[in-house]
């Protein structure tokens, strides 16, 4: 993927094969299991139950909203320009920020599916079962780094 800045937009260009991989990757969203994530590790918080419920609801709502936003992105011909040779994505900074979150959901979710290994690069062996998650984890990382680079200008 090649990224560049055009005024206030971030432009991502991909070849045909890369575009296919990108779309396949996005089709995996949401990837993190909907299991609740704890608000606190060691403390008893005031109204803990209600606070935890609020967090769970906020995260669930985010998943629904992100799924809708992904569909909208793919239908938006101004931002999502598919060509015979590949694809051009024209994103605002806010779009890019949001896409980073989506890709990180796929990365973290794939890692969780792999059993949350302490060293994700040292899995004992690749099997038919683990390959899709290893692929999704690595590919989402690849796209994330490109988007981060475009955002921060590093």
């Amino acid at each position, binding site marked *: 993927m090649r990224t560049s800045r055009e005024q206030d937009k971030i432009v991502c260009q991909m070849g045909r094969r890369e575009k296919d991989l990108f779309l396949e990757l996005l089709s995996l969203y949401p990837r993190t299991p909907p299991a609740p994530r704890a608000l606190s590790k060691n403390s008893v918080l005031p109204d803990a139950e209600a606070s935890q419920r*609020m*967090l769970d609801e906020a995260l669930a709502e985010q998943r629904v*909203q992100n799924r809708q*936003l992904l569909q909208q992105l793919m239908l938006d011909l101004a931002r999502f320009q598919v060509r015979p040779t590949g694809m051009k994505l024209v994103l*605002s900074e*806010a779009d890019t920020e949001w896409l980073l979150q989506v890709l990180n959901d796929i990365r973290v979710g794939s890692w969780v599916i792999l059993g949350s290994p302490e*060293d994700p690069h040292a899995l004992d062996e690749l099997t038919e079962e683990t390959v899709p998650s290893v692929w999704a984890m690595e590919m989402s990382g690849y796209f994330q780094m490109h988007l981060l680079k475009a955002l921060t200008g590093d």
Partner: protein
Amino acid sequence: MAETVTPDLLPAAVPVQEQQDKPESDLEPGFLVICWNDPVNFMDYVTHVFQMVFGWPRKKAEFHMLQVHEQGKSVLARESLEKAEHYVHQLQKYHLHATMERDE
């Protein structure tokens, strides 16, 4: 589209009446926002998230990211219950392992 997900730096103002209803301890900055290390989030990503959520300059965000990486956790903020909750929500939306703990 994504304009709606631009992170807020601070939670919306709480109405005065609602604040008065809360125990005083909840309004005091007695809650720590902590980010815990995990082996999956990239260091650059974590730095970027800290900048977005807290509005920090890059150097400060990198300092806390390295603390998470090297010491297993970093205390990112000491806030009231409500603000701490807000920050944890934001960090968890980015899939960072963040929690809030009482500052005891």
